[in-house]
Every structure is written in C-alpha cells, then in structure tokens.
C-alpha cells in the first residue's frame, strides 16, 4: 500500500476521460434518446388523431347515409304523389270527354228523333189525306185543305 504519483496521473486521466465523454459521447446519445422520445410521442398523438378522424368519418358516413335515405324516401313520396295526381287528372279529363261525347250523342239523337218525328208527321198527314181521300172517294184539294192539314200536323206534335 504505497502512495505515489500514480494518484495524480489517475486524477488527470479521470478528468480527461470525463471531458471526452462530455464532448463526444453524452450529447449524441442524449440527442438520439430525446429524438426517439419525440418520435414516439408524435407517433402516439398521430395515432390518436387518426382514431378521432376515423370516428368522425364514420359518423359522417352514417349521417350521409341517413340523409340519402331520407331524400330518397322524399323523392319517392313526391313521385308517387305526382303520379297519383297525373292519374287523377287523366281520369277527370277522360270523364269530361266521355260526358261531352255523351252529351253530343244525346243532342244528335234528339235531332235525329225530331227529324224522324217530322218525317213521320209528314207521312201521317199524307196518309191521313190519302185515307180521307179513299174514304170520301173524292178528290180533296190539298190547297183547299191546307189549313186543315196544318192543324192536324200541329195536333200531332
């Protein structure tokens, strides 16, 4: 157990090694450690953000789907209503046309009946005159009895 100058040599070496470590070993390793810590922190927060983003997107998708479904329902309801309206209008128009046609036909029929009546009346007058002629066996002057015939026609109306 001797004390000697080795002690001071060791002391100086100690400081030199410590200085070297401070200069060339410690800072790069600490830098790498800090950078990695930051990277991990960033990665974690990015993952968190992605998660929230995903949740938001999913919520949006659900909303959009709901909206689309609603508008589709609305569209269908509108279309159905419009279709029903169109059918209704067509039906009304058809009914109108039918009514008109019926009215026209009725009018025509009335005119035809009138005309037939007139014709029948003429014929009845002529038959009456012919009948009377036969009965009387004498000629009847149609001109003379025109008034009589007109009256008869009138009565037959």
């Amino acid at each position, binding site marked *: 157990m001797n004390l000697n100058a080795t002690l*001071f040599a*060791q002391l100086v070496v100690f400081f030199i090694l410590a200085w070297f*470590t401070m200069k060339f070993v410690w800072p790069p390793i600490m830098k790498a450690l800090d950078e990695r810590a930051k990277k991990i922190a960033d990665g974690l927060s990015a993952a968190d953000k992605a998660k929230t983003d995903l949740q938001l997107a999913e919520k949006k998708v659900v909303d959009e789907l709901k909206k689309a479904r609603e508008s589709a329902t609305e569209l269908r309801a509108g279309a159905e209503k419009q279709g029903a309206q169109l059918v209704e209008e067509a039906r009304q128009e058809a009914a109108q046309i039918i009514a008109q046609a019926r009215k026209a036909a009725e009018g025509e029929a009335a005119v035809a009946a009138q005309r037939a009546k007139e014709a029948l009346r003429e014929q009845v007058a002529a038959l009456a005159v012919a009948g009377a002629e036969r009965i009387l066996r004498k000629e009847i002057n149609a001109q003379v009895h025109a008034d009589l015939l007109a009256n008869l026609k009138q009565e037959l109306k």
Partner: protein
Amino acid sequence: MATEHAPTASEYIVHHLTFLTNKKQAGLVDWSVFHLDTLFISIGIGLLAVFVLARLAARATSGVPGRFQAAVEIVVEMVADQAKGIVHSPESRKFVAPLALTVFVWIFLMNAMDLLPLDLLPNIWAAIYGAAGHDPHHAYLRVVPTADLNATLGMSTAVLLLCLYYSVKIKGLGHWIHELFTAPFGAHPLLWPINFAMQLIEFLAKTVSHGMRLFGNMYAGELIFMLIALMGAAWAGTVGSGLLWIGGVIAGTIWAIFHILIITLQAFIFMMLTLVYVGQAHESH
C-alpha cells in the same frame, strides 16, 4: 515462469501484489514513483471505453436501435436519471452526468479485469519481459487498477476537487467560506474553529472513504482469487491435493460469479457517491 523451484505460497502472493514501477518506492509516500501497470491498464481501458462509446454515439440513431446501442442507452439513461435526481442544477449536469457515466463504465471495466484468469496477463508479461533479456522473476504486473489505492484515491480526489469547484461556483467564494465556519453548529464566533474542523474532517472522510471503499473491495477480491488459485496449485498427484484442486475450481467459480455482482455494485456505488457529493456541493446549509 520457468523457475527451478516452484514459488512458495507467500512468494506467489507477494509477487502478484507487487507493482510494476519506474523505480523503487522509498517509504510509504514517494511522489517520484509511478505504478506503470496501473497507469497502462487503466488508461488503456479508459481510452478503449470512451472511444467505443464515442464511435457508437457518432452513429447513434433515433430510430430503431441496435442491441449494443440499446444496451448503452440503458446505462446512459440510468446515469441520466440518477444525475437528474441528485444534482438539481441543469448547468452542472452537463458535465457531471457524463462524468458519472465515465466513472461507472470505467470503474466497471477496471474491476472486471479481476475476472480474467489470475495469471494470464502476468505470465504474458513475464514472457515478454524475459524475451527482452530481463529476469522474468522481476516481471511484476498488477492487473486490476482499482485494487491500487493510488488509482481509487486519485479518482476520489478528483471528485473532491469537483466538489470544491462547484461549491465556489454555485455559492460564491464568500458565501462558501462563510459556510465553512458557520455550519453545521451555528454562527457564534466561539464555534468557528469547531465548525471549520468539522468541515475539514467531513471533506477528508468523504474523499478517503470514497477511494478506500472501492480499493478495499477490489483488493480483497483479488486476494481471495489468489488464495483460490493457490488451492488449485496444490495439485501434486495425491488424493488430498486432488480434493484441494476440485475445491479450488468450485470456490473459484462461486467467487467469480459473486464478483460479477461486486464489480458492478462497486462501480455503481462509486458513481452514486460522486453524484451525491457533487449534489451536496450545490446545497446550502
């Protein structure tokens, strides 16, 4: 060691405990003597350690680390955490934390020299020494630098200087001197010499115990390795010596395994005490 007669047990141990010096030591304290073996091995190991670490640090990636980088990072983070908990000045930590890392790694490696086979390096050295034309009987080599009191006291003195430096730097010279005379007992003028004596004893005790603790552990460990080696060397072809040889193998194994714990623990303790003492230099009484 090509000897005519095998060395006796005490010769063997004395040979292993003799330093390689530049000249003969005169007396207990001789400032003109250097322990060349301690210096060579400790400086060699220290340089190797810091250059390997610096090489790694230069290529350190903040991405996925390799195994060696991860291992070094574990040590660095451990030291950084301890430094942060003990030394509260970030400015001081810029030097003290790397210093603590150096202490831990360097002392651990120097202690680990104990785990090399006891005669490996001394025999190589004896062969070189003999080949150079000297008497191989005088080829001395102490392999474990931390089992040299000069090395450990040198480091603890460095820590003492660091404490004095930070005391003055943090508290200011005036305040520090004031504290030397008024702490721990009080500011009464009658108490000044007592306070000052207490402070001196405290500094001395810290430094000496700091160095002695490491030295004592490693010296004792080395000595026990030598005794175990003597058990192994007792082999002489008889049953009794054979049992001794087997005992040497078992004891050597057990002691080496236990020593793995001791070398790590002592390196850690030296580092922690360095941080604690520097941390104390930052605190006012």
